[in-house]
């Protein structure tokens, strides 16, 4: 069963996926998503941070302040075990969606 919150799930799975390999700060997250999706997915500041704070509340990610060599302070988000656990069901939901859309609307999987 595909849940109705799929739209929010798009953003969640994108963020969790880019954090799977390494911690990133907010701008890097949005940049990485944009690059990996070849510009199809774009997160503005207004959309990204409320979502990151929600995911942090749920214990999926954790933001820690780090200071770079240039002296800039950035909040780096790290994927937590609970967030890593969420990735598998989210990916399964997306796979279900693609299968369903292929059948219904002949939409091809990328």
């Amino acid at each position, binding site marked *: 069963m595909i849940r109705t919150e799929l739209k929010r799930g798009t953003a969640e799975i994108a963020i969790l996926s880019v954090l799977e390999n390494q911690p990133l*700060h907010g*701008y890097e997250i949005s*940049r990485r998503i944009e690059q990996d999706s070849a510009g199809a997915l774009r997160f503005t*500041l207004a959309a990204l*941070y409320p979502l990151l*704070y*929600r995911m942090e509340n749920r214990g999926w990610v954790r933001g820690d302040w780090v200071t770079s060599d240039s002296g800039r302070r*950035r909040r780096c988000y790290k994927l937590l075990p609970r967030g890593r656990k969420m990735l598998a069901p989210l990916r399964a939901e997306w796979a279900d969606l693609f299968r369903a859309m292929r059948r219904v609307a002949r939409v091809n999987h990328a």
Partner: protein
Amino acid sequence: MPDWLAYVNERLDRLSLPETESLQVREELAAHLEDMYLSLRAQGLSESDAVRLACDQVSSWQEVRRAILAAKSEAFMQNRVKQLWVPGLVTLFGAAALMAVLQILGFRPFVIHLGQPSSIFLDVPWLLSLPLFGALGAYLSVRARAAGLAVHCASLFPVLVTAAAFLVIILASLILDRHVSLRIMTTAFAASVLNGVLLPGFFLLLGDWLLHFAMKRRAASN
């Protein structure tokens, strides 16, 4: 380069969050805009174009404020439930259930008559069990990462509920029972507060204090 922190501060000045949290949110958003500006400049855009594109990240700062507060308040409510309500209700129902069990088993409170209508009820076994419940409430609250007042409130939850009930009864009595002498009413309520709030409160707080003492000692030994 523009002062992005000043730019964000101007637009999110009324972010109703604790001061430290509010500062961190503003610093983080400013850092995002700064990174974007620097990245656009590195791609060869002119200063004005880079500033414009960075500023276009947000069409409505009011919306950003609302969305951030909604996300943060969700956490506040979740934490309030885990840090106060759940530990508090466990303490309340645990203490109430033990009192019921003791009464079923035939334990009766030791009564000290101070003259009508006030008496002091010393339910000794129950009172002696209260430090355990006070410590349990405090422990559950601390485990949910609460600190300070929330922990004490979770520990004292049963007497806070009783005190609130007494307050309502006192106010209702003052309005409805005007024929009863104020002296009698005051004495009766003073005794009730002593029996229902102060004595149990002392024992619950003792448990809270013992838990904190044990935790401090454990932290020191580690």
